[in-house]
């Protein structure tokens, strides 16, 4: 485990204390969770599994709005 000292603004420290009281978790745990969410959790064990093919293997017709090169944002966020 690495040790790191970080100065935290008073207002943020107060929010951390409040959150710790509300959740019953330690401030250290809250900080670790936040950092993990932002920069990625510790690497998951590499099981060596890799996809070997597509999930949809049915060669049926595509829909009229099926994309080609571009992501169709208008379908995702109409």
């Amino acid at each position, binding site marked *: 485990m690495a040790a790191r000292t970080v100065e935290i603004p008073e207002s943020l420290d107060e929010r951390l204390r409040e959150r710790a009281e509300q959740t019953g978790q330690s401030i250290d745990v809250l900080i670790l969770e936040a950092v993990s*969410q*932002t*920069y*990625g959790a510790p690497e*998951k064990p*590499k*099981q*060596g*599994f*890799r*996809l070997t*093919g*597509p*999930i*949809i*293997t*049915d*060669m*049926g*017709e*595509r*829909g*009229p*709005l*099926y*994309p*080609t*090169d*571009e*992501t*169709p*944002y208008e*379908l*995702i*966020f109409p």
Partner: protein
Amino acid sequence: MNSFFPDVNVWLALADVRHSHYQPAWNWLNAVSLDDQLILARFCQLGILRLLTNPAVMSGAVMNIGQAWNAVARLMGDSRVEFRPEPVDLDPHFRRAMAPLAEKPASKWIGDCYVIASAHAHRATLVTFDRALLSFAETHGYAALRPN
């Protein structure tokens, strides 16, 4: 370790054999090492869920929401794929990516610049089939590639 950030359309090409870029997508993925990382962000997760459940896109292969989540889970089961939430410091990257387009009204670029900024914030190479997006990213100094 290299990190890659496929856009929504690349995830769809990996998921669906009917995609016109299915083969290039898989050629690229098969060359990605087990030590490398594919980042699946919430934005792309939402996108693939939306497309897989849209009959106008998927036609007879349309999925219900449960099936679409299972499909996403299959993708995430690959040990190279990692879900990453939005970085807290994304905003300045997003604004910087969009700065050259400040005078444009085109909304598509908002989504494109979001994925550029997300890839950059994750220190990942954007992967896209969109030639305009690729060109824009490269012109402005972002790491990007188009599977061939």
